[in-house]
Protein backbone atom coordinates (compact mmCIF):
# COMPACT_ATOMS: atom_id res chain seq x y z
CA UNK A 1 0.00 0.00 0.00
CA UNK A 2 1.20 3.52 -0.80
CA UNK A 3 1.30 5.86 2.20
CA UNK A 4 2.15 9.50 2.78
CA UNK A 5 3.48 10.46 6.21
CA UNK A 6 4.88 13.72 7.54
CA UNK A 7 7.84 12.93 9.78
CA UNK A 8 9.50 15.77 11.72
CA UNK A 9 7.93 18.23 9.28
CA UNK A 10 9.11 16.42 6.17
CA UNK A 11 6.76 14.58 3.79
CA UNK A 12 7.56 10.98 2.86
CA UNK A 13 5.73 8.91 0.29
CA UNK A 14 6.50 5.19 0.35
CA UNK A 15 5.15 1.83 -0.69
CA UNK A 16 4.83 -0.32 2.46
CA UNK A 17 3.86 -3.89 3.24
CA UNK A 18 0.59 -4.16 5.16
CA UNK A 19 2.24 -6.13 7.97
CA UNK A 20 5.03 -3.64 8.64
CA UNK A 21 4.94 -1.73 11.93
CA UNK A 22 5.45 2.02 12.09
CA UNK A 23 8.62 1.30 14.09
CA UNK A 24 10.17 -0.84 11.34
CA UNK A 25 8.95 1.61 8.69
CA UNK A 26 10.78 4.47 10.44
CA UNK A 27 13.95 2.47 10.97
CA UNK A 28 14.19 0.46 7.77
CA UNK A 29 12.32 2.43 5.09
CA UNK A 30 13.00 5.99 6.21
CA UNK A 31 16.37 5.33 7.88
CA UNK A 32 15.50 7.04 11.17
CA UNK A 33 17.10 4.62 13.62
CA UNK A 34 16.89 6.80 16.75
CA UNK A 35 13.58 5.08 17.54
CA UNK A 36 14.58 1.77 19.15
CA UNK A 37 12.97 -1.62 19.43
CA UNK A 38 13.18 -2.90 23.00
CA UNK A 39 10.45 -5.38 23.86
CA UNK A 40 8.32 -5.07 20.73
CA UNK A 41 5.21 -5.52 22.87
CA UNK A 42 4.32 -2.12 24.29
CA UNK A 43 6.02 -2.58 27.66
CA UNK A 44 9.29 -0.67 27.50
CA UNK A 45 8.62 2.54 25.56
CA UNK A 46 11.95 2.62 23.68
CA UNK A 47 9.96 2.95 20.44
CA UNK A 48 7.87 5.92 21.65
CA UNK A 49 7.06 8.49 18.96
CA UNK A 50 4.46 11.26 18.84
CA UNK A 51 1.75 10.19 16.42
CA UNK A 52 -0.83 12.84 15.47
CA UNK A 53 0.00 14.70 18.65
CA UNK A 54 -0.11 11.74 21.04
CA UNK A 55 2.63 9.42 22.26
CA UNK A 56 2.36 5.84 21.06
CA UNK A 57 4.49 2.73 21.07
CA UNK A 58 5.41 2.58 17.38
CA UNK A 59 5.91 -1.20 17.63
CA UNK A 60 2.12 -1.48 18.03
CA UNK A 61 1.04 0.77 15.17
CA UNK A 62 0.94 -0.45 11.58
CA UNK A 63 2.69 1.71 9.00
CA UNK A 64 -0.47 1.61 6.86
CA UNK A 65 -2.39 3.16 9.76
CA UNK A 66 -0.01 6.11 9.57
CA UNK A 67 -1.18 7.12 6.08
CA UNK A 68 -1.95 10.85 6.17
CA UNK A 69 -0.58 11.29 9.68
CA UNK A 70 2.17 13.31 11.32
CA UNK A 71 4.94 11.66 13.29
CA UNK A 72 7.56 13.23 15.56
CA UNK A 73 10.68 11.22 16.36
CA UNK A 74 13.88 11.85 18.35
CA UNK A 75 15.60 12.99 15.14
CA UNK A 76 13.43 16.12 15.26
CA UNK A 77 14.46 17.06 18.81
CA UNK A 78 17.68 18.93 18.00
CA UNK A 79 17.44 21.82 15.55
CA UNK A 80 20.23 22.93 13.21
CA UNK A 81 22.69 20.71 15.02
CA UNK A 82 21.88 22.28 18.39
CA UNK A 83 20.55 20.06 21.18
CA UNK A 84 17.13 21.01 22.57
CA UNK A 85 16.75 22.42 26.08
CA UNK A 86 15.60 19.02 27.30
CA UNK A 87 18.51 17.21 25.66
CA UNK A 88 20.94 19.66 27.25
CA UNK A 89 19.35 19.11 30.65
CA UNK A 90 19.63 15.32 30.18
CA UNK A 91 23.34 15.83 29.44
CA UNK A 92 23.92 18.07 32.47
CA UNK A 93 22.20 15.68 34.86
CA UNK A 94 23.73 12.47 33.50
CA UNK A 95 20.23 11.28 32.61
CA UNK A 96 21.73 9.21 29.79
CA UNK A 97 23.88 6.16 30.34
CA UNK A 98 23.57 3.48 27.66
CA UNK A 99 21.16 5.73 25.76
CA UNK A 100 18.86 3.01 24.43
CA UNK A 101 15.76 4.35 26.21
CA UNK A 102 16.65 8.01 25.70
CA UNK A 103 15.02 8.58 22.31
CA UNK A 104 11.66 7.28 23.50
CA UNK A 105 12.09 8.93 26.90
CA UNK A 106 12.62 12.34 25.27
CA UNK A 107 9.48 11.90 23.17
CA UNK A 108 7.44 11.24 26.33
CA UNK A 109 9.07 14.25 28.00
CA UNK A 110 8.28 16.45 24.99
CA UNK A 111 4.63 15.37 25.20
CA UNK A 112 4.60 15.82 28.99
CA UNK A 113 5.98 19.38 28.77
CA UNK A 114 3.31 20.26 26.22
CA UNK A 115 0.60 19.10 28.62
CA UNK A 116 2.33 20.33 31.79
CA UNK A 117 4.93 23.04 31.10
CA UNK A 118 5.99 23.00 34.79
CA UNK A 119 5.36 19.41 35.86
CA UNK A 120 5.50 18.29 39.48
CA UNK A 121 7.61 15.24 40.35
CA UNK A 122 4.40 13.18 40.43
CA UNK A 123 3.43 14.42 36.97
CA UNK A 124 6.91 13.61 35.66
CA UNK A 125 6.66 10.06 37.04
CA UNK A 126 3.25 9.68 35.38
CA UNK A 127 4.55 11.14 32.13
CA UNK A 128 7.42 8.67 31.85
CA UNK A 129 5.66 5.65 33.37
CA UNK A 130 5.65 3.95 29.97
CA UNK A 131 9.40 4.36 29.44
CA UNK A 132 11.76 1.94 31.13
CA UNK A 133 15.32 2.98 31.91
CA UNK A 134 17.48 0.18 33.25
CA UNK A 135 20.60 2.31 33.86
CA UNK A 136 19.87 5.54 35.67
CA UNK A 137 17.25 4.56 38.22
CA UNK A 138 15.17 7.54 36.99
CA UNK A 139 16.42 10.10 39.55
CA UNK A 140 18.64 11.88 37.04
CA UNK A 141 15.89 11.84 34.43
CA UNK A 142 13.38 13.44 36.81
CA UNK A 143 15.99 16.03 37.81
CA UNK A 144 16.70 16.76 34.15
CA UNK A 145 12.99 17.31 33.42
CA UNK A 146 12.64 19.64 36.42
CA UNK A 147 15.67 21.58 35.18
CA UNK A 148 14.49 21.64 31.55
CA UNK A 149 11.18 23.12 32.72
CA UNK A 150 12.95 25.89 34.67
CA UNK A 151 12.34 24.44 38.13
CA UNK A 152 14.90 24.18 40.92
CA UNK A 153 16.60 20.85 41.42
CA UNK A 154 17.94 19.92 44.83
CA UNK A 155 20.44 17.16 44.31
CA UNK A 156 19.80 14.07 46.35
CA UNK A 157 16.29 15.11 47.33
CA UNK A 158 14.62 12.49 45.20
CA UNK A 159 14.19 8.93 46.36
CA UNK A 160 14.46 5.89 44.12
CA UNK A 161 11.19 5.21 42.32
Amino acid at each position, binding site marked *: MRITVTINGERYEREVE*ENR*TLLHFLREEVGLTGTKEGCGAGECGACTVIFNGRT*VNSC*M*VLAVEADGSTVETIEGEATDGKLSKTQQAFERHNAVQCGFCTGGMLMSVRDLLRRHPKPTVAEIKDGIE*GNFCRCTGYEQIIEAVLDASGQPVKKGELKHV
Partner: protein
Amino acid sequence: MLHAFHYLAPRTRTELFRLLGEHGPSAKLLAGGTDLLVNIRNGLAAPDYLINVKSVEGFSGILWSDREGLVIRASATINEVLESEKIRSDYPLLAVCARDLASHQVRNRATVIGNVVNASPCSDMAPALLCLDAKAVIASERGEREVPFREFFTGVKKTVLQKDELLERIVVPAHSAKTRGSYHKLKRINGHDLGIVGVALARKGGMVRLGISSAAPTPVFVGDLKESDPADAIVAAAMKAISPISDVRCTKEYREFMVGVFIRRLLMEVE
Protein backbone atom coordinates in the same frame (compact mmCIF):
# COMPACT_ATOMS: atom_id res chain seq x y z
CA MET B 1 8.16 -9.03 11.02
CA LEU B 2 4.51 -9.83 11.51
CA HIS B 3 2.95 -12.64 9.49
CA ALA B 4 1.29 -11.53 6.25
CA PHE B 5 -2.32 -10.36 6.29
CA HIS B 6 -4.59 -8.17 4.21
CA TYR B 7 -5.35 -4.78 5.73
CA LEU B 8 -8.85 -3.42 5.17
CA ALA B 9 -9.94 0.07 6.21
CA PRO B 10 -13.68 0.44 5.62
CA ARG B 11 -15.08 3.97 5.66
CA THR B 12 -18.69 3.17 6.42
CA ARG B 13 -20.59 0.97 8.82
CA THR B 14 -22.27 -0.87 5.92
CA GLU B 15 -18.92 -1.64 4.32
CA LEU B 16 -17.53 -2.86 7.66
CA PHE B 17 -20.43 -5.26 8.20
CA ARG B 18 -20.13 -6.56 4.65
CA LEU B 19 -16.42 -7.26 5.19
CA LEU B 20 -17.13 -8.91 8.55
CA GLY B 21 -19.87 -11.02 6.98
CA GLU B 22 -17.51 -12.08 4.19
CA HIS B 23 -14.26 -12.62 6.14
CA GLY B 24 -15.50 -12.95 9.74
CA PRO B 25 -13.98 -16.36 10.59
CA SER B 26 -10.55 -15.45 9.18
CA ALA B 27 -10.57 -11.77 10.13
CA LYS B 28 -9.71 -9.79 13.26
CA LEU B 29 -10.97 -6.32 14.02
CA LEU B 30 -8.17 -3.82 14.62
CA ALA B 31 -8.88 -0.97 17.04
CA GLY B 32 -6.00 0.11 19.29
CA GLY B 33 -3.95 -2.92 18.30
CA THR B 34 -2.24 -3.01 21.68
CA ASP B 35 -3.24 -6.63 22.25
CA LEU B 36 -3.86 -7.82 18.70
CA LEU B 37 -0.55 -6.76 17.15
CA VAL B 38 1.38 -8.27 20.08
CA ASN B 39 -0.60 -11.50 19.73
CA ILE B 40 0.14 -11.62 16.00
CA ARG B 41 3.82 -10.99 16.69
CA ASN B 42 3.86 -13.83 19.24
CA GLY B 43 2.02 -16.22 16.92
CA LEU B 44 -1.09 -16.34 19.14
CA ALA B 45 -3.27 -14.86 16.38
CA ALA B 46 -2.86 -15.40 12.65
CA PRO B 47 -5.75 -13.66 10.89
CA ASP B 48 -5.85 -13.44 7.09
CA TYR B 49 -7.56 -10.05 7.29
CA LEU B 50 -7.26 -7.12 9.64
CA ILE B 51 -10.27 -4.82 9.51
CA ASN B 52 -9.58 -1.38 10.97
CA VAL B 53 -12.57 -0.04 12.87
CA LYS B 54 -10.92 3.35 13.44
CA SER B 55 -11.42 4.30 9.79
CA VAL B 56 -15.21 3.93 10.03
CA GLU B 57 -17.16 7.17 10.11
CA GLY B 58 -19.15 7.70 13.31
CA PHE B 59 -17.15 5.21 15.39
CA SER B 60 -15.07 7.67 17.35
CA GLY B 61 -15.68 9.57 20.54
CA ILE B 62 -17.60 9.40 23.79
CA LEU B 63 -21.06 10.97 23.70
CA TRP B 64 -23.80 11.83 26.12
CA SER B 65 -27.53 11.80 25.52
CA ASP B 66 -30.22 12.35 28.16
CA ARG B 67 -32.21 9.49 26.70
CA GLU B 68 -29.50 6.84 26.37
CA GLY B 69 -26.83 7.97 28.83
CA LEU B 70 -23.11 7.72 28.22
CA VAL B 71 -22.16 6.20 24.86
CA ILE B 72 -18.62 4.91 24.35
CA ARG B 73 -18.03 4.21 20.67
CA ALA B 74 -15.85 1.52 19.11
CA SER B 75 -12.69 3.59 18.58
CA ALA B 76 -12.80 5.59 21.83
CA THR B 77 -9.50 5.21 23.66
CA ILE B 78 -8.78 4.78 27.34
CA ASN B 79 -7.22 8.25 27.50
CA GLU B 80 -10.39 9.71 25.99
CA VAL B 81 -12.20 8.28 29.03
CA LEU B 82 -9.72 10.10 31.28
CA GLU B 83 -10.12 13.35 29.33
CA SER B 84 -13.94 13.31 29.33
CA GLU B 85 -15.43 15.97 31.63
CA LYS B 86 -18.70 14.06 31.77
CA ILE B 87 -16.99 10.88 32.94
CA ARG B 88 -14.89 12.69 35.52
CA SER B 89 -17.94 14.37 37.02
CA ASP B 90 -20.64 11.69 36.67
CA TYR B 91 -18.90 8.31 36.18
CA PRO B 92 -15.69 8.65 38.22
CA LEU B 93 -15.34 4.86 38.61
CA LEU B 94 -14.72 4.55 34.86
CA ALA B 95 -11.89 7.06 35.14
CA VAL B 96 -10.33 5.34 38.17
CA CYS B 97 -10.25 2.02 36.31
CA ALA B 98 -8.96 3.64 33.11
CA ARG B 99 -6.14 5.33 35.03
CA ASP B 100 -4.88 1.93 36.20
CA LEU B 101 -4.72 0.48 32.70
CA ALA B 102 -1.20 0.15 31.27
CA SER B 103 0.90 3.23 30.39
CA HIS B 104 0.18 6.63 28.85
CA GLN B 105 1.34 5.46 25.39
CA VAL B 106 -0.85 2.35 25.54
CA ARG B 107 -3.85 4.35 26.81
CA ASN B 108 -3.48 6.67 23.80
CA ARG B 109 -4.18 3.68 21.51
CA ALA B 110 -6.01 1.03 23.51
CA THR B 111 -9.80 1.24 23.31
CA VAL B 112 -12.44 0.60 25.97
CA ILE B 113 -14.18 -1.80 23.62
CA GLY B 114 -10.95 -3.67 22.88
CA ASN B 115 -10.38 -4.07 26.60
CA VAL B 116 -13.73 -5.85 27.01
CA VAL B 117 -14.00 -7.85 23.77
CA ASN B 118 -10.67 -9.50 24.58
CA ALA B 119 -12.51 -10.84 27.62
CA SER B 120 -9.36 -11.18 29.64
CA PRO B 121 -10.16 -12.00 33.27
CA CYS B 122 -7.85 -9.09 34.18
CA SER B 123 -9.73 -6.48 32.11
CA ASP B 124 -9.55 -3.19 34.01
CA MET B 125 -12.65 -1.63 32.41
CA ALA B 126 -14.96 -4.60 32.98
CA PRO B 127 -15.27 -4.16 36.80
CA ALA B 128 -16.48 -0.56 36.33
CA LEU B 129 -18.87 -1.44 33.49
CA LEU B 130 -20.35 -4.30 35.54
CA CYS B 131 -20.89 -2.05 38.57
CA LEU B 132 -22.49 0.68 36.43
CA ASP B 133 -25.12 -1.51 34.72
CA ALA B 134 -23.51 -0.95 31.31
CA LYS B 135 -24.72 -2.78 28.23
CA ALA B 136 -23.02 -3.85 25.02
CA VAL B 137 -24.69 -2.81 21.77
CA ILE B 138 -23.70 -5.50 19.29
CA ALA B 139 -24.19 -5.02 15.55
CA SER B 140 -23.79 -7.04 12.39
CA GLU B 141 -25.28 -7.23 8.90
CA ARG B 142 -28.14 -9.14 10.56
CA GLY B 143 -29.07 -6.23 12.82
CA GLU B 144 -28.49 -4.98 16.33
CA ARG B 145 -28.85 -6.53 19.78
CA GLU B 146 -28.17 -5.42 23.32
CA VAL B 147 -26.51 -7.54 25.96
CA PRO B 148 -25.93 -6.43 29.57
CA PHE B 149 -22.25 -6.79 30.54
CA ARG B 150 -23.34 -9.19 33.25
CA GLU B 151 -24.14 -11.66 30.46
CA PHE B 152 -21.40 -10.64 28.02
CA PHE B 153 -18.43 -12.70 29.22
CA THR B 154 -18.74 -16.47 28.77
CA GLY B 155 -15.24 -17.74 29.60
CA VAL B 156 -11.53 -16.95 29.43
CA LYS B 157 -11.21 -14.80 26.28
CA LYS B 158 -14.76 -15.75 25.33
CA THR B 159 -17.81 -13.54 24.89
CA VAL B 160 -21.29 -13.76 23.38
CA LEU B 161 -19.97 -12.11 20.17
CA GLN B 162 -20.39 -14.10 16.95
CA LYS B 163 -17.79 -14.04 14.15
CA ASP B 164 -19.74 -11.53 12.07
CA GLU B 165 -20.54 -9.24 14.99
CA LEU B 166 -18.96 -6.10 16.35
CA LEU B 167 -19.35 -4.50 19.76
CA GLU B 168 -20.25 -1.13 18.28
CA ARG B 169 -20.85 0.87 21.42
CA ILE B 170 -21.08 0.62 25.17
CA VAL B 171 -23.98 2.36 26.85
CA VAL B 172 -23.67 3.32 30.50
CA PRO B 173 -27.19 4.27 31.56
CA ALA B 174 -28.09 7.73 32.84
CA HIS B 175 -29.40 6.20 36.08
CA SER B 176 -25.84 5.11 36.94
CA ALA B 177 -24.54 8.67 36.91
CA LYS B 178 -23.13 9.94 40.22
CA THR B 179 -22.41 6.42 41.45
CA ARG B 180 -19.53 6.68 43.92
CA GLY B 181 -16.80 4.13 43.52
CA SER B 182 -13.17 3.20 43.34
CA TYR B 183 -10.88 0.40 42.13
CA HIS B 184 -7.95 -1.25 43.83
CA LYS B 185 -5.59 -3.38 41.79
CA LEU B 186 -2.76 -5.53 43.08
CA LYS B 187 0.36 -5.24 40.94
CA ARG B 188 3.99 -6.25 41.27
CA ILE B 189 5.16 -2.66 40.81
CA ASN B 190 3.72 0.85 41.16
CA GLY B 191 3.97 1.49 37.42
CA HIS B 192 2.05 -0.16 34.63
CA ASP B 193 1.47 -3.85 35.09
CA LEU B 194 -1.19 -6.47 34.57
CA GLY B 195 -3.39 -6.89 37.60
CA ILE B 196 -2.81 -9.82 39.93
CA VAL B 197 -6.27 -9.23 41.32
CA GLY B 198 -8.54 -6.17 41.31
CA VAL B 199 -11.73 -5.00 43.01
CA ALA B 200 -14.06 -2.16 42.04
CA LEU B 201 -16.66 -1.11 44.61
CA ALA B 202 -19.61 1.14 43.82
CA ARG B 203 -22.24 2.67 46.09
CA LYS B 204 -25.52 4.21 45.09
CA GLY B 205 -28.97 4.51 46.65
CA GLY B 206 -28.13 2.32 49.63
CA MET B 207 -26.75 -0.49 47.43
CA VAL B 208 -23.21 -1.80 47.19
CA ARG B 209 -21.81 -3.52 44.12
CA LEU B 210 -18.54 -5.21 43.32
CA GLY B 211 -16.70 -5.84 40.06
CA ILE B 212 -13.73 -8.17 40.48
CA SER B 213 -10.91 -8.82 38.00
CA SER B 214 -8.37 -11.69 37.77
CA ALA B 215 -10.26 -13.86 40.24
CA ALA B 216 -12.28 -16.17 37.96
CA PRO B 217 -12.42 -17.21 34.27
CA THR B 218 -14.33 -13.96 33.59
CA PRO B 219 -14.62 -10.59 35.34
CA VAL B 220 -17.06 -11.14 38.22
CA PHE B 221 -20.06 -9.06 39.28
CA VAL B 222 -21.52 -9.18 42.78
CA GLY B 223 -24.74 -7.22 43.26
CA ASP B 224 -27.66 -7.24 45.69
CA LEU B 225 -25.55 -6.00 48.57
CA LYS B 226 -26.80 -3.31 50.93
CA GLU B 227 -24.88 -0.51 52.58
CA SER B 228 -26.19 -1.81 55.89
CA ASP B 229 -24.62 -5.26 55.30
CA PRO B 230 -21.62 -5.89 57.55
CA ALA B 231 -18.21 -6.00 55.80
CA ASP B 232 -17.92 -9.72 56.65
CA ALA B 233 -21.12 -10.48 54.75
CA ILE B 234 -19.95 -8.50 51.71
CA VAL B 235 -16.59 -10.30 51.71
CA ALA B 236 -18.37 -13.63 52.09
CA ALA B 237 -20.61 -12.87 49.10
CA ALA B 238 -17.49 -12.04 47.03
CA MET B 239 -15.79 -15.29 48.09
CA LYS B 240 -18.80 -17.25 46.90
CA ALA B 241 -18.67 -15.54 43.51
CA ILE B 242 -14.96 -15.87 42.71
CA SER B 243 -12.91 -18.93 41.78
CA PRO B 244 -9.29 -17.81 41.46
CA ILE B 245 -6.42 -20.01 40.33
CA SER B 246 -2.79 -20.23 41.37
CA ASP B 247 -0.45 -19.16 38.59
CA VAL B 248 2.94 -17.63 37.92
CA ARG B 249 1.91 -14.33 39.52
CA CYS B 250 0.46 -15.57 42.81
CA THR B 251 -1.49 -18.28 44.59
CA LYS B 252 -5.23 -18.79 44.72
CA GLU B 253 -5.15 -18.18 48.50
CA TYR B 254 -3.34 -14.86 48.13
CA ARG B 255 -5.88 -13.70 45.52
CA GLU B 256 -8.77 -14.60 47.84
CA PHE B 257 -7.06 -12.87 50.75
CA MET B 258 -6.43 -9.67 48.77
CA VAL B 259 -10.00 -9.52 47.43
CA GLY B 260 -11.12 -9.45 51.09
CA VAL B 261 -8.53 -6.79 51.98
CA PHE B 262 -9.50 -4.59 49.04
CA ILE B 263 -13.23 -4.84 49.82
CA ARG B 264 -12.63 -3.77 53.44
CA ARG B 265 -10.40 -0.88 52.33
CA LEU B 266 -12.88 0.22 49.66
CA LEU B 267 -15.81 0.11 52.09
CA MET B 268 -13.96 2.67 54.21
CA GLU B 269 -12.69 4.70 51.25
CA VAL B 270 -15.88 4.98 49.18
CA GLU B 271 -18.26 7.07 51.26
